[in-house]
Every structure is written in structure tokens, then in C-alpha cells.
């Protein structure tokens, strides 16, 4: 052993260069595909660039940001983004915990159950958006039909047509689509908990509700917080679902939809980039919180 150790150590020191050689392609890809475009977007947000004129641009200072702050539509988009994130993430977490607890039990058919739960996640977002748009269709949709048949409502609900109901449908579909993912994250956390605590609780025959609130929930807290931040990061970027379900109605736009619309459809690269930059800094702020949480977990 004494003989081996120096050899390995020597190899490690000498190999620092080869470490970076192995990393080089990946780092180049990250810089070219993420770093540079990001830098350019921030740069464009201070200019009056358009899609067909990205070279001869004039520097306009913070004009784009100022007019963004004065734009009612932008604030509506910010509000929509927040509403969607603030409602859908806690809902997904609660439902995710329930599903995770079910999946954590070993029973006949738990393998099938796992596959079933994974299905909403496998369906491409656009497909699920169109699928739900069809189910929520105000005239022919099955959801309205079932609700009327069960005499919960009398008049069909205009799910995807009215502004408020559109937001509700977006949240509904988002929750349906991402709860499985949330459940899997929480299940992984649940399974890494020390099992002897649960056994002790079972021996003491502690009622399940008490066991959940006094034992599982406190132990799961770090996992739940990390998973919630992780999901919030995703939720504020929401684009696909809104694009399909709000059918171009700008009253339901989120920050991403607003930015893309100005960037591409209105041909205002500078203005759209400014909106995207604000979103970026907001996400970065959340991201810093997330990373500090997960690196604290890494140290433990």
C-alpha cells in the first residue's frame, strides 16, 4: 500500500492538464452555446437592434428598460408569470408529496403505478397542451361535458377563451404535467431518509397523520425546499403551454412569451432582449438561492 500511494498521488498531480483536456470540449460548448449568446443578448438590450439589422446598431443606453417599465402589457406579463408560479408550484408540491408517499409503499403493482405516474411527464409539452386544449374546448370539450353531466355546472366554462379561465387552464395543465416529476424528486428524497426512524414510529404505533406531520415532513424539509426552488425556476420560464393555451392573447402572456413576441414578431430585438434580460436576472436571483441551498446540502 505504501508503494502504491505515491504512484497514484504523483499521477494525480501530473494529470491536472489532462483533466482540463478532458473537460475542454464541454467547456467550449458551454461558452459558445450559452456564454456568448447570453452576453450578446444583454448587449443587445442596450441597443436598438432589429432582426435584419444586427450589425449597424446604435447604443440607446437604458431606454429599452425605461420604456419596459412604462409598458402596461409588460407588468401584466410579470403578474401572470408570478400568479402561475405562485399557484402551481405549491399545488404540485402538495400533490407530489401524496404521489411520492403512495409510490414509496411496496404493494402489488407498484411497478405499474410508477410507470403510470411517469406518463404525463413523457408526453411532449406541445402535445399535452393541444390535448388539453381539445379537452377544455368550450363547445365540444369533454371536461365541460362531464361537469355538466355531473351537474356541477349548468353553463359550459369558457376555459381557453376568457382571460381568467385561460390562466386557470394553464395552471391546471402545468400541474398535471409536472406533478410526476415533482413526485419523483420527492420520492428520491423520501428513500434517502434513515429508515430506522420510520420503523421506530411503526413499533410505537404512531397514527399515520401524526407520523407524517411530526416525522416525515420535518425530515423532508430540505428536499422539499430544494425541489420547490427548482420548480419555481422552471415555472417562471413557462412558454410552450402559454403559447398554445392562450392562443396569442396578449392579456395572458408571461414574461417569456412577451419577450419572444417583441423579439421575433414585432422585430424589436433590443426591446425583446431587455425583457429577456430582466427575466434572466430574476431567474439568476432565484438560481443563486437554489445553488447556495444545494451546495450546503453537498457539504453535509
Amino acid at each position, binding site marked *: 500500500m505504501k508503494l*502504491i500511494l505515491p504512484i497514484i498521488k504523483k499521477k494525480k498531480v501530473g494529470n491536472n492538464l489532462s*483533466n482540463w483536456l478532458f473537460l475542454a470540449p464541454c467547456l467550449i460548448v458551454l461558452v459558445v452555446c450559452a456564454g456568448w*449568446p447570453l452576453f450578446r443578448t444583454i448587449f443587445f438590450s442596450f441597443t436598438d437592434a432589429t432582426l435584419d439589422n444586427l450589425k449597424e446598431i446604435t447604443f440607446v443606453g437604458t431606454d429599452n428598460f425605461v420604456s419596459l417599465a412604462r409598458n402596461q402589457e409588460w407588468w401584466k406579463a410579470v403578474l401572470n408569470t408570478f400568479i402561475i408560479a405562485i399557484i402551481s408550484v405549491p399545488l404540485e408540491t402538495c400533490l407530489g408529496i*401524496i404521489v411520492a408517499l403512495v409510490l414509496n409503499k411496496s404493494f402489488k403493482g407498484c411497478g405499474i403505478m*410508477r410507470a403510470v405516474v411517469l406518463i404525463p411527464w413523457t408526453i411532449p409539452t406541445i402535445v399535452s397542451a393541444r390535448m388539453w386544449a381539445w379537452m377544455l374546448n368550450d363547445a365540444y370539450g*369533454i371536461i365541460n361535458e362531464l361537469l355538466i353531466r355531473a351537474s356541477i355546472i349548468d353553463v359550459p366554462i369558457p376555459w381557453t377563451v376568457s382571460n381568467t379561465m385561460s390562466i386557470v387552464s394553464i395552471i391546471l395543465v402545468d400541474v398535471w404535467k409536472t406533478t410526476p416529476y415533482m413526485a419523483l424528486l420527492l420520492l428520491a428524497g423520501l428513500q434517502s431518509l434513515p429508515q430506522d426512524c420510520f420503523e421506530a414510529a411503526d413499533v410505537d404505533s404512531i397514527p399515520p397523520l401524526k407520523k407524517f406531520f411530526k416525522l416525515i415532513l420535518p425530515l423532508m424539509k430540505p428536499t422539499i425546499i430544494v425541489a420547490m426552488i427548482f420548480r419555481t425556476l422552471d415555472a417562471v420560464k413557462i412558454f410552450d403551454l402559454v403559447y398554445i393555451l392562450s392562443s396569442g392573447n396578449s392579456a395572458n402572456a408571461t414574461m417569456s412569451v412577451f419577450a*419572444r413576441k417583441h423579439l421575433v414578431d414585432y422585430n424589436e430585438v433590443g426591446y425583446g432582449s431587455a425583457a*429577456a434580460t430582466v427575466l434572466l436576472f430574476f431567474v439568476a436571483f432565484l438560481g443563486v438561492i437554489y445553488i447556495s441551498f*444545494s451546495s450546503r446540502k453537498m457539504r453535509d
Partner: protein
Amino acid sequence: MILKVSKWKFKRTLKKMFFCALCIVIAVCCLFPFYWAIISSLRCSSDVFSANLFPSRITFENYKYIFNDITFGCALWNSTSVAIITSVLASIVCLFAAYPLARRKFTGRKRVLMTALGVTTLPHVAVLSGMFEMIRIFDIYNEKSALVLAYMIITVPFTLWVMTNFMNSIPKDLEEAAIMDGASQYTILTKVFIPILKPAIVTTGLLAFIAAWNEFLFALTFTLTNQARTVPVSLALFSGASQHEFPYGLIMAAGVTVTLPLMLLVVIFQRKIISGLTAGAVKG
């Protein structure tokens, strides 16, 4: 005593029934929308708007139409080729990068991992204009290579994390034995690690494939013609000839067609995919 036992038994059955009911509710919620999509796709055009939970008559009319449609065929081919190229490229790049990240201790290791994690959280719309400029400079607008380039940003950081996690789980003895035999780092990676990691590589590749297959924002922005569009974009833009036409049967048929193969793969690789998916977020 007997009374107590029967009460206990009663309580247990009640609990079991509650649990079963919960399972059924979850399963119905997960499955019903997709079931409804399949049912709608199998109905003939006059029957689409009926709300019967079971179809009275099944036709494959919609599927026939979809498979004879050139636009959809093009989109299917574009999506498949872009997703395969993206996942293979990302897997190769990350396989090499994950090796030192998982197996060596060097300054900057943690920083690289954290940068990758940071990139996964980037809003894609924030790289849109910069990426657009780059695609203009390379003159690849409306081409598949533009999409592959853009998809690297979604797949590489994520794949790197998952791959690093999988590589971390290989016992150290194997590597030490190889070092003792005088193997170089490259040999260790290609002759020792890659064979062991085969299932993990397939899984990460599959995850990258799914990410590329589902991507919408970049595909919508960087393609213009029907010949270059991918499946999500052509599905999103697909509408009837007039405003009053609802070709829902066709849309559902197309949706089911692009989802079923994916679903099959995910169910087959379920266990591995779950461990891959949760690697980045929770295990830290």
C-alpha cells in the same frame, strides 16, 4: 379480545380501501387525457365531437391521412435526426468531461459543476437573440444544424450532471487496479468505464433525446419553412383550412404518433431514468 381484533381488521381493510381508491384516482388523472387523445384520434370525422367515453366505431382514417402528409413526414424526420445528433454529441462531450469531474480532485472542479447547474436554470428566451445572431453569422438559419447548435445548451449541462453522478457510483478499486497496470486516463475511460457505464449512457442519451424531441421555443424561432420544422412546431401551427374547422382528430393522431414510441422507451428504461432525472436536483 375478539372484538378488538375484528376492529383492528376493520380498520386495516378501511385503510387498504382508502389506499386503493387513492391509487385509482391518481391513475385515472394520469391516464385519462392520453386515453381521450387516443379515442379522439380513432373516431371518424363526423364522430369527433361526441362525448361518449367509449367510441362506437373505430377508424384509422386520421392515421392514414397523417402518414400520407408530407409536412408531417418531414417534421418527423427532422425531429428524429436532430434529436439523435444532439443526444449523441452531448453524450460524447459529457462522457469525457464527466470523467475528471467524477474521478479527480482538482481546483475548479466544483466551479465547473456549479456553472453547468447554472446553465440548466437559464431562461431559454435570454439566449434567443444572441443565438439568432450566431446562426446568422454561420448562415445556418432554417437548417437542422442551427437546431443542434441551440439544443446543446439544453442537453449538455444536464447530461453532464447526470453522467457525473453515474460515474461517481463506480467503485474506486477498478480504477486503481487499472492505474496499477499502467493504463492511461484515456484507456481507463474507454476500456474500463464506458463498458460498465453502457446502461447509464443509454439512459442519459435517452434523456437528452427526449429534451431535444420536445423542445419548442428554439425550433419555433430558428425555422421558417415546413421542410425545416420539427414535430412540436408543426403540431403547434397545425390548424384547419378555415377558422371554423377543428381538425382535432388529426391533431390527436399526430400527437399520439409522436408520443407512443417515447412512452415505450421511458417505460422500458423506467428505473434508470428515474435515478437519472433526480440526480441533478436532489442528490446535489
